[in-house]
């Protein structure tokens, strides 16, 4: 069966510091991968998706970036965090973009101070 991992589970970082969140998927190959952010009391906002290694599409302009160095690895990064980057970050995978349900990892709660 498929499993999706995210780490760290929680993170407190000062403004201006860099960020790296990692997501890995087991039990499937060539998954579609997604990064979402959920602000308090809000729905999920799609940040990035990837259909393959090195292929990243951004949904919203921001100071975050994503990379997919391996088939089942997805990384969310920032060079300098802003207060507004605080939130709950979720990674998800699906079999085929636009046709199948997505399955979510446990999430990372980021607090920028």
């Amino acid at each position, binding site marked *: 069966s498929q499993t999706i991992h995210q780490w760290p589970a929680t993170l407190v970082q000062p403004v201006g510091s860099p960020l790296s969140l990692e997501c890995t998927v087991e039990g499937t190959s060539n998954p579609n991968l997604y990064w979402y952010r959920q602000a308090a009391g809000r*729905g999920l906002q799609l940040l990035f998706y990837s259909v393959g290694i090195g292929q990243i599409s951004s949904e919203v302009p921001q100071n975050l970036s994503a990379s997919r160095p391996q088939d089942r690895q997805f990384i969310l990064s920032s060079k300098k965090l802003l207060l507004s980057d605080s939130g709950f970050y979720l990674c998800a995978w699906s079999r085929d973009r636009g046709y199948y*349900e997505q399955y979510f990892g*446990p999430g990372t709660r980021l607090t920028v101070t």
Partner: protein
Amino acid sequence: EDKVVQSPLSLVVHEGDTVTLNCSYEVTNFRSLLWYKQEKKAPTFLFMLTSSGIEKKSGRLSSILDKKELFSILNITATQTGDSAIYLCAPLDNDMRFGAGTRLTVKP
């Protein structure tokens, strides 16, 4: 612009009550609609609805889609405290477009 509206935003009921959660949407290139349950962390998948008028059922939960009127409902019968969660609907075109969710609280 895509729009997804869920109502009510929050709901408090007692165990045994039946609840109906609503989701209306405006999405170009609509393919299907998904419902998720989010407790403390990751949303967990409940249903994917593709065709109008066909009810999907899982235990005490059921859901139906109306593609003409652009809405879906999620019903939970005989609610239990374990049903307390945020319920998210997400129409799917190429990507999922999430609503803000309905926060359901079931009191003993």
